[in-house]
């Protein structure tokens, strides 16, 4: 359980986090989304007591982080996988952290095994790929068997197998009743992993909703239909509230009617359908719709700058 109350962080004139009040609940995977520079990492650092809030407070499992007696048992954090002493091996890094809490060597070996670092545990961290460093970061987060996990971009740099493993892992941990708070820029991954979403932009809270609700909020119904009767169908369906985009000789995309209505409509006319694919709303689209106005570093349309024919 993580609770922040009017959490604010100001760097000079920049308001990095603006009076953020959120609750991250146990038993769920909560996704933390926001454009670059939205204040996600700053928020996470304040929760971990690393950065001091300008005002407001952040509590983990009911306590300020600084007051935790066994912080690694309360919170496991992965902030920046690359933040490793380059000359130290993974095992020594873990052993040093374990020593602060009297955690046994057996547990260190256990998390090394768990994260698949066995074969590289004695190599210096400076030689690690980003994926290996991420695994070590996750090993650190799991070391003290924490009740709450805070993971900043945990799948960044992982191979597909690792990405899936992280997803299964956090789902598993949330299933055990633990609090999982993770950020990611990979929307498809987040969509499969998180139950709840907290969206931040320019330090302000934009949304704090369940995943399904968030996606449905900004989605429209529709379906892609492939049929030899595309033209007839397009003409027949044309009416206010329905938009039809022809995509090919026998392919149309219908907005405003769902797949069931389209299928039923085709059946009444006796039109064979070769494809009927519901247009699923994606987290990515919902997220982009929401943050469109609030992005700090917006990419300009690339068409204006690249791709002009010589």
């Amino acid at each position, binding site marked *: 359980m993580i609770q922040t109350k009017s959490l604010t962080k100001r760097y000079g004139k920049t308001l990095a986090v603006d009076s953020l009040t959120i609750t991250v609940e146990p038993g769920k995977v909560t996704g933390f989304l926001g454009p670059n520079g939205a204040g996600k990492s700053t928020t996470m*650092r304040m929760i*971990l*007591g*690393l950065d*001091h809030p300008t005002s407001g407070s952040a509590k983990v499992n009911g306590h300020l982080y*600084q007051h*935790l007696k*066994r*912080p*690694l048992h309360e919170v496991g*954090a992965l*902030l*920046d996988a*690359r*933040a*490793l002493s380059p000359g130290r*091996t993974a095992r*020594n*890094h873990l052993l*040093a*952290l*374990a*020593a*602060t*809490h*009297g*955690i046994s060597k057996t*547990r260190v070996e256990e998390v090394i*095994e*768990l994260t*698949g*670092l*066995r074969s590289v545990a004695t190599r*210096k961290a400076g030689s690690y790929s980003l994926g290996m460093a991420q*695994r070590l970061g996750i090993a650190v987060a799991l070391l*003290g*068997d924490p009740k709450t996990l805070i993971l900043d971009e945990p799948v960044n740099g992982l191979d597909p*197998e690792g990405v899936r493993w992280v997803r299964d*892992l956090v789902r*598993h941990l949330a299933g*055990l009743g633990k609090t999982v708070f993770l950020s990611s820029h990979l929307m498809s991954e987040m969509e499969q992993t998180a139950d709840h979403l907290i969206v931040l932009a320019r330090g302000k809270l934009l949304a704090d909703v369940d995943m399904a609700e968030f996606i449905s909020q900004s989605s429209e119904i529709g379906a892609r239909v492939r049929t030899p009767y*595309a033209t*007839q169908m*397009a*003409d*027949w*369906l044309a009416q206010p509230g329905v938009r039809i*985009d*022809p995509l090919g*000789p026998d392919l149309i995309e219908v907005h405003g009617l769902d797949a069931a*209505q389209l*299928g*039923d*409509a085709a*059946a*009444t*006319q*006796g*039109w*064979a359908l070769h494809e009927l694919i519901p247009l699923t709303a994606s987290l990515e689209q919902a997220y982009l719709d929401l943050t469109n106005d609030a992005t700090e570093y917006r990419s300009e349309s690339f068409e204006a700058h690249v791709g002009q024919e010589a």
Partner: protein
Amino acid sequence: MSSAQFGYEQYLQAQAALRQQAMTTQYPPGYPQQPYPTVPPSLDFPPPTVSFPYHDSDDETTGKHLITTGLPPGMVAPPQAMEHTPGHIPVVDPVSDTGSAPAVVAATQVDTTPPNSAAAPQPTAPRTPRKSTVEVRNVAFFRVLRAESIKLRTLTSTWWLLAIAVILTIGMGALMGWTIKMAFENPESMGISPDMVDLFRNMEATTLATTGMQFMQLVVTILGVLYITNEYSSGSIRATLSAVPTRLVMVIAKAVNLGIAVFLTSMASLYAAAMVGWAFISGYGVDDRFTLSGLRAIAGASLANTLITLLAFAVGLLLRSTAGGIGTVLGVLLVLPIITQILPWDWATTTGEYLPGASSIWLYNFGDAAAANMWDWNQWGFLKGLWVTGAWALLPFIGGLAALKARDAGGSE
């Protein structure tokens, strides 16, 4: 092609083309051809009146679950069942055409066994955690002390720097011993006056040992700076402070470890240097290798090294930068003394005496004058050397602690 690039005119053109194509397309016999509807439909469609028979069954030979959908009579269908296994392209077997009732079969495999149960686990495949009981104890100073000692020992530069310090100290001791031995044997050829030879006759072994002190100090101060700035340059300070949120505990544990390491290394290498030096001057100089006064000098020198290293550590803590920290410490140890000597005023000379390099010498100088002032806090001797050098170590350290508590954890992003 998306609708954005598709204007209304193009849309109409495409429609006309589609309509033309639909009119001329040859459909298989049995395809329901309907007249082109003229009335737009309502959004409330009636349920479909055509019902398609379907049944599902288990294939007895493969154990796969089959869903078979019949087609309206008269429609052409593939001659036999197609089986689709995920990851495989369905293949139609031309031999087993029985000419039975036309049917399209969509097969879904119902898994009764876990996937890849027979496959060997990959060596680096991460696993799902088992439910385990992990013993986790409260953070305590002695545990942090142990953790920081692991970190100091697993820092590559620690061993390099300590090895260089030891080699320099012993090497300088040996070099001085050899030079003095030469002076005793051939004073004329080396151009050394008889007075100087007399002076050498009272040479103590521990004095030889401390010849390399200045070099050693430079090396151990680099260790002092690196031990803390390494955490900032790598960013591991965040992991460190996440595990030990009480920052004072973390930094005091570091200082204690560093102090012990430098003190013990200094003691060992200075003692070794005294032994080596004595091997050269035995028979000429004073043998204080095993005397209390000899040990006192070596311990005092080790204390001086330790205090200077803590000063370097504190500077690293304040500046959080390896280059800045080492530069500042070398400036205080090497550059400031020269400046204070050059400046013509008395106060500059006096200030020079209070610089850490100069004040720390009194911690291991037990000559006649120093011995007389040993416990006088206001005359240069052991006590004054101790409090001045101690202040050089302690004041920046307290400043570093306050800054550490007040500032954000930092570490490179």
